[in-house]
């Protein structure tokens, strides 16, 4: 059980670092895109802060943001598959 606990704790720690970095990166990319969109025009009436704020709030509820959870899901899936392939296939 100790070996499993070690794997889970270390894995969770490393993946959390990856998750946080990826979230921050994705958010900053979205912010850049919104700012470019505002500068290119076609968004009359809103000032840049409001426009970006609104865009980021939409992003917070989006599927794209939830897809970053794949950072946890994909490794768990791979490990489960390897366990199945090695021991039961």
């Amino acid at each position, binding site marked *: 059980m100790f070996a499993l606990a*070690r*794997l889970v704790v270390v894995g969770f720690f490393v993946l959390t670092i990856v998750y946080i970095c990826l979230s921050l990166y994705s958010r900053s990319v979205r912010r850049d895109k919104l700012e470019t969109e505002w500068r290119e025009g076609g968004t009359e009436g809103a000032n840049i802060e409001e426009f970006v704020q609104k865009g980021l709030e939409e992003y917070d509820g989006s599927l794209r943001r939830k897809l970053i959870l794949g950072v946890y899901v994909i490794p768990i899936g791979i*490990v489960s598959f390897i366990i199945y392939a*090695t021991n039961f296939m």
Partner: protein
Amino acid sequence: MGYIKWTFWITFWVLVASFFHYTLPQHDVARITDTYEKRIDFGENSLFWASADTGNAVTSVNRDVFFIQTRLSNDNVMVYRNEDTGWGWPPYFKFDTTNLQAEASDLKSVAETPQWVVIKHYGWRNEFMSIFPNAVSVRAVDDPNVRMIPWLNISILIIFFAFVWAIWVRCRRFREANIDPVLEDAGDSIANTSDGVKKWFGSWRK
């Protein structure tokens, strides 16, 4: 400086290559001649042995290890150990050691009526350190000349080198953008200064 740099990079890449050669799965075609277990007292070579079967005590200093001895299709002999990797490194997540031993025993054959098997394994055989590759799975095949393409190894290595390349390109760009201009400036100012010093010495010599 050139020698130090080359020594460093050659050592680094030899270590990376041996790491992959040890860890990635390889396939041997062989005929299983016997299976047995033997008590092993781990010493200097303990790094090259896996841990006790998952769930068993981990504190014991020695234990019985399963072995599979074979004759390869190229007529050399090869002995594999058969140990759990459990939840540890390398990530094969192998828990079915005892079942594998049962399968291997079932596939035993003699030279006159050979039953060929493909043994997936990782690790090295080294007689001077008494280390053995760890068998991961066996399956029976009819033809000893069966052709196997290591798709998994190919994809893992491609992904690895893609990462290395991505990091290398970024390092180079960073150096071109930030470090080289600074060094050039420094070089220019040294050149200017030495010019000035020469002139001063020249004026002094007259």
